[in-house]
């Protein structure tokens, strides 16, 4: 009995403990599933170009100042950190840090070399600057906020109390300015300009928007940055004329990929196939260096896979047909110009209208030509005659008379029904349509308008108002032409006289530095270089065929007129022999000069 009882007790105990023990354990040992190939310390892809550190310049004050003005370059998150490395520890608190998207770099152009005045205690540095703009975290260069024209700060040796090598210890900035300064040289050196494209308000054209990508951003993150830019919307001055992505569009984490395939994951409310395709086109043009496939996911669902190269071929940026043709005004009539290697054209205007012409602006539109001619009357007053139709245009309408009318420009709109153009008449900006009625256009800046130029996309214009250069966005709607807020561009030129678009994001600008010259200026004014420094006289006409990815630019894409003589860039004089369809002048009569050259495209 005892044995049976014992067995029973043991059984019950086993049962209870066993069943209690066969639940999910509270803690187990570590179970190794498999081994993952160990991480390889990959190399960063080349472009990493950090601005020099404080110690790089040694005790060379000039180089140190140059480096200090480049210190903020790079990714904005650590800009304050980098700049503060240059600042003496005791003065670092004077630079008040901003966070996140408020970090902005004040981009300045040094108008003179820095003035470095050595002193007993510390060296004094004065830099004279021109405010160019504010580089924001989204890569745009916004109009300048600060108005300072000079900054002052001190330098001291980093070697304190005689410790260490004075040469090696380098310098420190004392009493720093309370902004992150970035010289325009550093902007060119440590940033890569890039264009991202937004759809115009009518969603027919892509409008480029200028951005700056720090060179420290590796290639792999380029897609991510571009998508972020697109999501964050266009620059302020473009905003009235372009449409961004739908509100509350967000990118889910980073865009990933490489080796010809990328993946972008978005939350996009109200997306449809057309919108996605447009977004893909935007991306394809905004990432011109990438040729592979791009997968677009919305809320983790794969929606479309596009080949970036094919997408670019399928959706060209601009509806340009053929090469641009050069024309000029010769003896009061528009004549084509012929240069070696370029096909000569014919005048797309009926000869009856082609008389007493001062200047002209042509534009190709679907199925025809838009022609606007400034015609001088007998009393020296001028009026605008406008004609549209198939080549040659015969029907023209005329405006009323004005004292002076500048070169008319056509806005390239997808809406072929009602073409619009802009013209400066009597120092005011007017719009005109095919009925040749000039209607003043309101500007948000005051001043006399001297020149206007329209970009290839037909949405952006550049103009010279009150001697300063402005860009603005234009909206063409049923009622007419509306200008967005004009954004002033800083330039080193003064006495501006003429402007035209030299590329998607650059302008050619005539004015005078010391002498009259022609400069090319980026659309935000940050980059500026000389096209021709010595024109010799004030440039009165300036016309360019803008660089674009669709049609290759011919050589000498800038033509101008100075002192009544037309030139082809850089300094080739346009001769009478190059003017076609000209009857040779009777002997003894001094032949006229070709003037007011322009392009038809």
């Amino acid at each position: 009995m005892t044995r049976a009882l014992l067995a029973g007790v043991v059984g019950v105990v086993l049962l209870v403990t066993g069943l209690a023990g066969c639940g999910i354990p509270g803690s187990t040992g570590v179970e190794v599933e498999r081994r993952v190939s160990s991480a390889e310390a990959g190399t960063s892809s080349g472009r990493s170009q950090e601005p020099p550190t404080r110690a790089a310049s040694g005790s060379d004050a000039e180089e140190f100042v140059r480096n200090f003005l480049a210190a903020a370059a790079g990714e904005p998150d650590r800009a304050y950190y980098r700049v503060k490395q240059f600042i003496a520890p005791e003065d670092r608190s004077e630079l008040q840090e901003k966070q996140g998207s408020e970090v902005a770099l004040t981009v300045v152009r040094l108008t003179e070399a820095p003035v470095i005045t050595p002193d007993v205690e510390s060296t004094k540095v004065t830099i004279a600057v021109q405010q160019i703009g504010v580089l924001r975290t989204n890569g745009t260069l916004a109009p300048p906020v600060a108005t300072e024209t000079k900054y002052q700060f001190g330098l001291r040796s980093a070697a304190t109390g005689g410790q260490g090598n004075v040469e090696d210890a380098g310098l420190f900035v004392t009493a720093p300015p309370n902004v992150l300064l970035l010289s325009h040289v550093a902007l060119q050196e440590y940033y890569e300009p890039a264009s991202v494209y937004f759809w115009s308000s009518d969603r027919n054209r892509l409008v480029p928007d200028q951005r700056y990508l720090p060179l420290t951003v590796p290639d792999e993150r380029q897609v991510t940055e571009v998508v972020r830019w697109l999501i964050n919307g266009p620059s302020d001055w473009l905003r009235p004329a372009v449409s961004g992505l739908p509100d509350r569009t967000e990118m889910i984490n980073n865009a990933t990929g490489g080796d010809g395939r990328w993946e972008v994951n978005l939350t996009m409310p109200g997306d449809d196939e057309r919108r996605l395709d447009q977004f893909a086109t935007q991306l394809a043009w905004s990432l011109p260096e990438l040729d592979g496939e791009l997968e677009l996911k919305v809320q983790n669902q794969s929606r479309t896979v596009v080949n970036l190269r094919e997408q670019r071929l399928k959706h060209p940026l601009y509806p340009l047909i053929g090469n641009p043709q050069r024309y000029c005004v010769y003896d009061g009539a528009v004549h084509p110009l012929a240069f070696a290697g370029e096909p000569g054209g014919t005048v797309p205007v009926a000869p009856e209208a082609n008389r007493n012409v001062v200047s002209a602006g042509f534009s190709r539109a679907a199925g025809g030509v838009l022609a606007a001619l400034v015609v001088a009357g007998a009393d020296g007053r001028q009026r605008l005659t406008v004609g549209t139709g198939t080549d040659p245009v015969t029907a023209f309408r005329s405006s009323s008379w004005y004292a002076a009318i500048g070169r008319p420009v056509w806005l390239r709109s997808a809406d072929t029904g009602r073409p619009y153009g802009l013209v400066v008449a009597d120092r005011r900006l007017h719009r005109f349509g095919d009925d040749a009625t000039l209607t003043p256009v309101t500007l948000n800046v005051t001043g006399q308008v001297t020149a206007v130029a329209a970009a290839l996309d037909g949405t952006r214009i550049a103009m010279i108002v009150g001697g300063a250069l402005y860009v603005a966005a234009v909206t063409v709607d049923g009622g007419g032409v509306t200008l967005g807020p004009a954004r002033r561009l800083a330039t080193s030129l003064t006495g501006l006289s003429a402007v035209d678009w030299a590329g998607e994001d650059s302008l050619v600008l005539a004015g005078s530095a010391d002498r009259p010259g022609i400069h090319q200026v980026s659309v935000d004014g940050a980059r500026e270089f000389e096209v021709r420094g010595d024109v010799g006289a004030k440039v009165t006409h300036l016309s360019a065929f803008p660089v674009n990815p669709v049609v290759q630019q011919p050589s000498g894409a800038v033509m101008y007129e100075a002192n009544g003589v037309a030139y082809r860039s850089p300094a080739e004089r346009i001769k009478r022999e190059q003017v076609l369809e000209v009857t040779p002048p009777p002997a003894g009569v001094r032949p006229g000069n070709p003037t007011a050259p322009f392009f038809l495209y």
Partner: protein
Amino acid sequence: MVTSPTPHADPAVSRRRHAGRELCRAVVGRSARLVAGLHQTWRRSLQVRVVTITLVASSLLVGGFAYVIANKITDILLTNAVTDTRLRITSGADYAAKQVYLFSQPQEAQLQDTIEGTVNYLAGGDPQQTSGVVVAITADNYTDIIETRSSPVLDVRPLISRELRASVADGNVAWQIRTGRLTGERAKYLVYGSPVPTRFGQVELYYFVPLSRQDATAADARATVVATGVALVLLLGLLAALVTRLVVTPVRVAARTAQRLSAGLLDQRMVVNGEDDLALLAASFNQMATNLQRQILRLEEMSRLQRRFTSDVSHELRTPLTTVRMAADLIFAERDDFDPAVARSAELLQAELDRFEELLTDLLEISRFDAGFAMLDAEPTDLVPVVHRVADRLAGLAERVGVAIELDVPATSVIAEVDPRRVERVLRNLVGNAVEHGEGKPVRITLGVDDTAVAVTVRDHGVGLKPGEEKLVFNRFWRADPSRARQTGGTGLGLSISLEDARLHGGWLEAWGAPGQGAQFRLTLPARAGDRLTTSPLRLVPADAALPFGGPRAGGLLAIGPGPGGALAVGPAGAGEKAEARS
């Protein structure tokens, strides 16, 4: 304030201690009784045994099965969770690797944002809808640069054990179950870690999957299994009880019936129900009982017929014998007138007729005992005159064979409730036998008495009895030496009848003898009729007898030791020498 301990035990405490001891004792006693009761029940009840064994065996079996099943269910649940998480963490690690691959320096500003975005993405956003799964990314190699991020934001570090951390840091995909507190209450978590390769080294991705659902399911399954198991065990126990009851009840009935049969109620039978094995048992039992009853009745009948025959023969012989006797008496009376040879024949005839008559009388007496017709006619009797009378009556015979009869009787009268006729017959038989086998040596008759019994011993010093003959002497017609001529006219039934007489009194008749030392017979009778004898006032073995091992010293106590043949010899009444005369 300090209370000093009381120097003397508080009476209340002592009372309490006492009461406690009482209680303890009571409990111990009660439990001991309970154990004893259980033990008795266990021994007595086949049903209890079978049910207990069934319960224990089925408990073990069902418990084993339950363990296996519950274990299997838990295993499956756990394996599912692990597989699920493995798939999730594999894709999660791929995703995280792609995301982090964009960064070549741990210091890069957007890395932290990317890690946060990645864990949020992997956790699926709303923690309410992700069944409590927590995703975290740690960077053990860059703890001061990269912060640990988790979604939802919780302190997950305590849940990652050092071993797991080391294993994952070593480049292993590994998991562990840990109990800890992440969101509110403590729960079990499956902690799954995978390294995420980056261009600057490695970060670690962890998934914390709460196992509460699996735990609850396992507990449910376990409860179900246990409930089923318990129910099954109870059912088996019930079944065993029922089946045993089915078997045990008829067995008990059979036992009871057998008991009644053995008690003489030969007409007791079992009830036969159905045609099963138990019915067969009952039928066989009944058959056996019937056969036994028939056999017993037949034997009784035969025995009765035999006794009747003996009695009838004795009676039938008596009548012609009477006639023959009368004729023989006549011839014997006239023998002097006959030829001496004829006269001798007449004397022989007379003597043999006497023996014949005696034999018949004894046979009748024996048959009366056998038939159970012997009746005790007990009355208070003084045994001293009886002894004297017997001695006187046999004095002639003793004188003839030269044997002196010595009497050792108390001076006072010895009163006992006996049948004087039968006692006298017994004594006559014993003394006659002693005189006959006395070989000329004196025969001593001793009468002893105590509170409960009276005893008479008859001692002779003849050839004695061989070992084993103490019992045989009481057999009917037994002779120590069949070839020896009978000097006296003993019938061979005297001692048998004496034994029956002693039994009728509820007394003992025993013999002792040893070769060459003579023999002694003892008759012990209760002083009051119907009393039960326990001792005898006289010794069976005479004091002058030489004991096999030398005997006790004179006047000393008897030694108890091993006797011949392994028997225990205890004087004066050696167990092996005591005649079986108790009724």
